[in-house]
């Protein structure tokens, strides 16, 4: 029986349910406590910093020749703006760390921080991206505040628009979100007197890249630094960054030869970690009368905040939008402009789905709008345009591998039983109740290797993953991976894959991750990539180890490797009773006499690097909602997902990823919004203001699987980490618009708060 495909309870959990997990704050106890004094001014010149006497206080001046953070793109008119680790002359957003103070306890550090006096001469901040386009430059490298500007246009685009039967235009707005991992950021840096190295434990999704980034900024060899990702309490993209706070910790540990910890509080996290999704898109679609999409023209404006995030750069949102916009739809003529604009706000970083929740929201709103303008059925217009023959080369040069776009749509629509719903909707309207159904069809580029990142022109080109595998003399297997899971259950799923390849019990497999001293260089866990990439590399590496075991078995059993079958922890000569336990082979290879090991070799290890082009998962989400027209409140009555992530390694974990993603998508659709005032102050700096949904808001989700087996992934698994978050805003807002159709209301902004819905309804009410 194979391990893959089964709902194996996670190997990670027994420790976590006991409270025995080790998160970074648990390591910080007894360390010097570091607190950052942050700017209360969005834009201004630092005139004076007065340090309290006798205290350890670090300013930008003290950091000396520490280099700024300067991520780079070599394409798309990218301006390489610089982020100082601690600023010396200017502050550029509320929350920017200016000074670090150090004390014996967190409480004492907070007291000390309050006694630092910083005088700043404020000037007028630019908070909004459109305003920033005509404002004074925030960075000398970007005079118009445009930090990245991607354009493309197919030669026939204009002609297609000129000849269109029907032009559909919309403008959408996605408000700003915070990924809000329940564990905020943090780090603990310790000087090791024996090795003269620093060990940094940090709540991060990318330990290797964090080491590279910190070593480059400090100008030290990477080998002087060990980065460990202990248990990490969620990331969702926010922890795939190089943050000044962590650089300061390492600097302090080196300079002062001690232990220094910074554990971010929630207010800092909401104000000063990283934000996402603050985007405006304008779409023009050229449609035939029958609903065929002939051409699409998009203008993407992404508010990237005050600095450009490392390593992806602030191009990550706008350029992903530009490249992946046509989504699952056939399209031959396309024009796009995608700009990232600097403002005096918290920097943007990738967040679960990156641009795709916004793209999908925009495209699916466009489809519904086009259907209404053309008098077509919303299901039919989607069916007509969905890609239905694979592989399909998109207008932006991506290859869509085998998938099930139409099948997912058809099954989802069948499951919601549209005719029955329409009858119920009509009956409800007669009672003054407003029900609506909304669709979202999308694909998601997952598990992509370095070619995809190279196409963006990233100076640092992530993508591949490496797995080193070895069988110990006792016959147990260790796999060292470059990915860095933090809730995805990768220890479990990779163990399932490796156990199948070797024919052993998965309890004999140990996955080692999150430590730059013990794992091969890798990129970490983000972008729905780890199961595809680390899973692929695990399978390839385990296959090589299996070959070595077959060789060893052949030597011990006087057979040939091609006749050896692995299974049940043994190697057996096919169609015979002759067999040997893998444990015995392991013992013989490592400890056996020379005469024996001449045939066996002395090595039961292997490694593999997997660097594929990527594979597209897909889904159709259907939301059924009821809108209270008196209050503007939205209740989700039913939520259906038909998704295709290829082969499911552990269906329970897949469902968990989808359900969790949808909860964040519902938050994006209805609740969460970071609000700035005109002066650049955040008005949503607590979890009482920034509304992370609870069990009361999140409905049960019905998940159904299709399993298209793709050749684009060696495990035939597709990535699934982000899909839930991608589909939900579109499905929910389409459902709201369907519910409010009697009022002629169209909504193009998320979150669709009661306030926004009521404002639209009020505008329609007779005075």
């Amino acid at each position, binding site marked *: 029986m194979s391990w893959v495909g089964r709902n194996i309870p996670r190997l990670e959990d027994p420790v*976590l349910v006991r409270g025995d997990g080790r998160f970074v704050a648990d390591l910080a106890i007894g360390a010097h406590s570091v607190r950052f004094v942050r700017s209360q001014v969005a834009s201004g010149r630092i005139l004076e910093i007065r340090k309290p006497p006798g205290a350890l206080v670090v300013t930008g001046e003290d950091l000396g020749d520490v280099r700024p953070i300067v991520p780079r793109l070599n394409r798309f008119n990218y301006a390489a703006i610089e982020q100082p680790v601690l600023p010396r002359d200017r502050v550029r957003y509320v929350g920017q760390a200016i000074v670090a103070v150090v004390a014996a306890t967190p*409480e004492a550090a907070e007291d000390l921080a309050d006694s630092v006096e910083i005088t700043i001469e404020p000037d007028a901040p630019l908070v909004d991206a459109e305003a920033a386009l005509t404002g004074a430059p925030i960075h000398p490298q970007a005079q118009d505040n445009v930090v990245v500007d991607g354009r493309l246009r197919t030669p026939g685009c204009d002609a297609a628009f000129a000849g269109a039967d029907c032009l559909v235009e919309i403008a959408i707005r996605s408000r700003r979100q915070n990924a*809000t991992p329940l*564990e905020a950021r943090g780090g603990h840096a310790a000087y090791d007197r024996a090795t003269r190295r620093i060990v940094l434990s940090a709540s991060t999704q990318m330990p290797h890249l964090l080491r590279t980034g910190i070593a480059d900024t400090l100008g030290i060899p990477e080998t002087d630094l060990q980065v460990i990702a202990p248990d*990490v309490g969620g990331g969702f993209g926010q922890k795939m960054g190089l943050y000044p706070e962590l650089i300061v910790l390492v600097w302090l540990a080196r300079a002062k030869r001690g232990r220094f910890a910074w554990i971010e509080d*929630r207010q800092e996290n909401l104000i000063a970690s990283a934000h996402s999704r603050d985007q405006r898109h304008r779409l023009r679609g050229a449609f035939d009368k029958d609903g065929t999409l002939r051409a699409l023209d998009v203008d993407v404006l992404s508010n990237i905040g005050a600095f450009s995030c490392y390593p992806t750069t602030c191009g990550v949102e706008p350029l992903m939008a530009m490249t992946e916009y046509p989504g699952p739809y056939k399209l031959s003529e396309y024009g796009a402009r995608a700009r990232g604009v600097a403002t005096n706000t918290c920097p943007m970083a990738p967040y679960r789905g990156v641009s795709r929740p916004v793209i999908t929201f925009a495209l699916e709103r466009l489809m519904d709008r086009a259907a209404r303008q053309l008098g077509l059925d919303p299901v039919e217009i989607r069916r007509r345009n969905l890609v239905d023959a694979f592989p399909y080369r998109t207008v932006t040069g991506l290859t869509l591998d085998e998938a099930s776009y139409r099948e997912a749509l058809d099954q989802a629509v069948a499951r919601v039983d549209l005719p029955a719903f329409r009858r119920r909707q009509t009956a409800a309207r007669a009672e003054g109740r407003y029900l609506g159904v909304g669709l979202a069809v999308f694909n998601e580029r997952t598990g992509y290797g370095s070619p995809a990142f190279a196409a963006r022109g990233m100076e640092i080109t992530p993508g591949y993953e490496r797995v080193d595998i070895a069988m110990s003399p006792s016959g147990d297997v260790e796999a060292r991976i470059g990915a860095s899971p933090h809730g995805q259950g990768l220890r479990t799923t990779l163990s399932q894959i490796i156990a199948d390849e070797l024919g052993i019990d998965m309890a004999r497999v140990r996955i080692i991750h999150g430590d730059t001293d013990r794992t091969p260089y890798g990129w970490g866990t983000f972008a729905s990539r780890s199961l595809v990439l680390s899973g692929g590399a695990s399978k390839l590496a385990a296959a090589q180890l299996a070959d070595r075991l077959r060789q060893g078995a052949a030597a011990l059993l006087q057979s040939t490797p091609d006749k050896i079958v692995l299974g049940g922890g043994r190697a057996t000569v096919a169609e015979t009773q002759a067999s040997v336990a893998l444990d015995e082979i392991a013992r013989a290879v490592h400890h056996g006499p020379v005469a024996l090991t001449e045939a066996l070799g002395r090595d039961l290890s292997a490694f593999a690097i997997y660097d594929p082009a990527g594979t597209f998962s897909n889904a159709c989400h259907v939301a059924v909602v009821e809108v209270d027209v008196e209050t503007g409140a939205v209740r989700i009555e039913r939520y259906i997902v038909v998704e295709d992530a290829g082969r499911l390694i552990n269906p329970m974990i897949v469902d968990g990823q989808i*359900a969790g993603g949808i909860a964040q998508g519902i938050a994006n659709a209805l609740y969460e919004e970071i609000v700035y005032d005109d002066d650049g102050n955040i008005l949503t700096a607590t979890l009482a203001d920034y509304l992370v949904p609870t069990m009361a808001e999140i409905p049960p989700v019905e998940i159904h699987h299709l399993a298209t087996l793709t050749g684009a992934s060696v495990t035939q698994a597709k990535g699934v980490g982000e899909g839930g978050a991608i589909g939900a805003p579109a499905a929910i807002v389409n459902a709201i618009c369907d519910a409010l159709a009697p009022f002629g209301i169209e909504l193009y902004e998320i979150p669709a708060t009661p306030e926004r819905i009521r404002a639209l309804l009020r505008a329609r009410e007779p005075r």
Partner: protein
Amino acid sequence: MTTMKIGFTVNGSATTVEVEPRRSLADTLRDQCGLTGTHLGCEHGVCGACTVIVDGDPVRACLMFAVQADGAAIRTVEGLADGERLHPLQQAFWEHHGLQCGFCTPGFLMLATWLLERDETLDLATLRHVLSSNLCRCTGYQNIIQAVTAAARAMGKWSDG
């Protein structure tokens, strides 16, 4: 700053600690009792990750001063399992995939423990109402509901009403 000497029991063991009056119960449990299973997610009383049971009631340990717990009986996640044997709730969270990153889990476990130790049986509406006071960012909550339901059934505390 002056400190005060206080005493309480944690998971049945008597403990004496010296704390600043302003120190929270959560920081005291974590930093001075070594019980780091109690997590801090917001330190302003919204997320519930730090939920512990004090004298029989669920409490946000970030909002309670340690000195307020002087003489109290405190229970934390570390006290749930019986040696190697997991508490039915811990077992159910494991079997029903009720956690991903595991950061919120101790708070949910302690709140649910309190819920299942009450005299009355538990129904779905009550479960949703009570557990909606804690935040989870990973699971979308459904598996937490499944887990607590399963544990309640196993403990003979579930009511379908």
